[in-house]
């Protein structure tokens, strides 16, 4: 089963993983990625962060990414949860969890989904530092991470 959620509330990593692995006794592998807010970015201290998104398009983008992962690999379940609004250091920002019969597919699908999410899903981070607010710039490495998957198509 696939579930996508964009929410201001914190999410429960455990509950999601427990639910996911209980879905089928055919599951041999669960791979999950949690993206966490760091207290340092580009060398500066960051006290809080605000995540803006494009409601409607965000969900569409995530559904497209999940559908593409399901086409490429033989998966059993997928969860994608992304927080928006105000976050503190060490808060989970995003969870991508994938189950499959064998581990290779779960690893690839999980990394594919987070790579695509990072360059396609309309979220924007604004950090609060001692020097004031600033929008986070897109990392060049995220585009490269996404481009890797094109050669598999």
């Amino acid at each position, binding site marked *: 089963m696939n579930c996508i959620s964009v929410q201001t509330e914190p999410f429960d990593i455990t509950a999601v993983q427990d639910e996911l692995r209980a879905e089928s006794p055919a599951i041999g592998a669960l791979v999950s990625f949690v993206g966490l807010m760091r207290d340092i970015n580009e060398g500066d201290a960051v006290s809080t962060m605000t995540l803006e998104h494009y409601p409607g398009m965000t969900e569409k983008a995530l559904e497209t990414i999940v559908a593409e992962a399901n086409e490429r690999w033989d998966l059993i379940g997928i969860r994608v949860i992304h927080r928006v609004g105000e976050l503190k250091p060490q808060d989970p920002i995003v969870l991508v969890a994938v189950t499959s019969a064998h581990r290779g597919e779960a690893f690839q699908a999980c990394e594919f989904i987070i790579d695509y999410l990072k360059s396609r899903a*309309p979220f924007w981070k604004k950090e609060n530092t001692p020097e004031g607010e600033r929008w986070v710039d897109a990392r060049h490495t995220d585009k490269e991470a996404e481009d890797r998957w094109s050669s598999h198509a």
Partner: protein
Amino acid sequence: MIEILYFARLREQLETESEELELTSEVSDIASLANLLRSRGGVWEEAFGGPTMMSAVNQEVANPTTAIKDGDEVAFFPPVTGG
């Protein structure tokens, strides 16, 4: 009539969250719409003069040649930084 949305740094720079615009014959795709907006001058010229803008038409990622027609929801925004 189309609706145009602006997000994140761009929204702050333009001090505009959204607007409605009557389509004229000169606007047929993202590139020509961006040209029209740039021609407003000032912060609009600055914002739409750079190379790194992203866009969407009806909530799907677009590119300069993506067509725009009456009733569409068009969005402009900086490169995304979620995850």
